[in-house]
C-alpha cells in the first residue's frame, strides 16, 4: 500500500485568521493526503519541529501578511540544519510576482497565488513528492 503523503499545514505570521489554511487543508485531504493542521501564528522553528515529529513529506504555508520574505528563508535554513532538506515546501497566499524568483532561489518552487485551483496544488505536490523516500532512513 502506498504511504499517504503527509503534509504539515501552518499559518505563520501575526494576522489572525486561518480560513485560507483550512481551505487548503480540506482540499489536500480530499486529494487523499494526511494533513497535520497546526493552527495560527506558527514560527518557522515550530513548523520545522512539527514536520520532524510528524515525519512530514511536505510543509504548506499559508501567508497573507507579506511575511514570506522573512519566514521562508528562515524555514528553509532550519530544515537544512535539521537534516530535513528533502521536505517539499509550498507557499500559498498573496505573494508579489517580483518575490517569486527569490523564493525559487531558496528551492521553493510551489508558490500559489489566491485563485489557484486547489487541484493544481495537490497535483503539484503529488508530482514532487518522492514516494517512499522519507520512509527509508
Amino acid at each position, binding site marked *: 500500500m502506498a504511504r499517504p503523503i503527509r503534509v504539515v499545514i501552518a499559518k505563520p505570521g501575526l494576522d489572525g485568521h486561518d480560513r485560507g489554511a483550512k481551505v487548503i487543508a480540506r482540499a489536500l485531504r480530499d486529494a487523499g493526503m494526511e494533513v497535520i493542521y497546526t493552527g495560527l501564528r506558527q514560527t518557522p522553528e515550530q513548523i520545522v*519541529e512539527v514536520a520532524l515529529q510528524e515525519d512530514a513529506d511536505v510543509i504548506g504555508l499559508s501567508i497573507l501578511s507579506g511575511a514570506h520574505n522573512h519566514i521562508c528563508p528562515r524555514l528553509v535554513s532550519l530544515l537544512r540544519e535539521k537534516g530535513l532538506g528533502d521536505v517539499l515546501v509550498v507557499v500559498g497566499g498573496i505573494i508579489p510576482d517580483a518575490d517569486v524568483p527569490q523564493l525559487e532561489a531558496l528551492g521553493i518552487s510551489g508558490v500559489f497565488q489566491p485563485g489557484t485551483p486547489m487541484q493544481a496544488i495537490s497535483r503539484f505536490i503529488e508530482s514532487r513528492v518522492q514516494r517512499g523516500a*522519507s520512509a527509508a532512513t
Partner: protein
Amino acid sequence: MDLADRVLAGDQRAIARAISLVENEPDAAAGLLRHMAGRIGHARVIGVTGAPGVGKSTLVDRLAAEYRRMGRTVGILAIDPTSPISGGAILGDRVRMQRHVFDEGVYVRSMATHGRLGGLSHATSDAVLILDAAGRDVVLIETAGVGQAEVDIARTADASIVVTIPDAGDGVQAMKAGIMEIGDVFVVNKLDRPGAERAAAEIEEMLSLREYGEGTWRPPVLKTRAATGEGVAAVVEAVERFAGQPAETRERRRTRARTRLTDLLRQQFVERLEHSEETRKLLDEAVERMAAGEIDPYAAVAEIMERTS
C-alpha cells in the same frame, strides 16, 4: 547508527521514521521491532477516549504538562479519523498541544485511523512499542470513542480515561455504545459549563449499578476544566493509583499482548495460505463452492484446516 539504535537512544527524528515504518512497511517494521526486545514494558500506556469535541486534546496537553512536572517523559499518539471517501485525513489535535513543541521530553505524533496495513490497532500498538523502547515514561493515546478499533486501543491500555462533558446529548445515554464499560477513570470536562455536577452524578449512578468486590477498583468520576488545567492533577493521581495496582497492570498487558499476538497470527496464517500456489487453490475452490451454496463456511474452514495442517 542505524534507525533502531537511534530509536533506542530516544532520537525524535528516528522515532518519527520508525512510526512511519510500522504504519506502512510491515516487513521493515518487523526487523526494527526485533531490535527493541528487552527494552519494552517500561512505559505507562494511557488511553483517552470520548466523543468529538469534549476536550480530549486539551486534556492530553494538560496531562502531558503534569507528567513533565513530575519529571517524566511523554509520547503522545493523537488519532483522528480518515475520510472514507478520499482516504485522506485532517489531523488537528496538535493545535491544542503546541506548548510542548520545543520540549524534547514530549513527542507528539498524529495518526489517521484507516488505510493502514493490518488496521489502526496494529499501527497504534506498534507505535506504542516504539515510544516505549525509546524510553518514554508515559504514552498518551487520544482516540475518538467511535469505532471498535478505537475502543480496543483504550481497553488494552494500562489505564483508560473516558471523557465526557455536561449535557453531552443525552449525557450518559449517549456514551453507552461500549465506552462506558472501558473507563478506569471518568472525567467530566468543561466544568465551567452548567450541568457538570449532574453529569458526574449520572455517571456515578451508572457505576453504582455494578458490583464491586473487596479490593476491586471502582472508577472515580472527576471534574476538570482542561482549558485552564483545573482538576487535571487529580486525574493523573487517579490514573497512577489505578495503574499502580500490579495485578491490574499485569492483566492489561496480558490482554494487550494476546490481542496483538492472535491478530498477527490470524493475519499471517491467511497470508501464508494465499501465498502458496497449492493452498491458494484450496481457498479458491472453497470460495467457489461457498458462493454456489454447496458448502457452508464452517465445513469449508474445517476442510482447509485439515488439508493444511
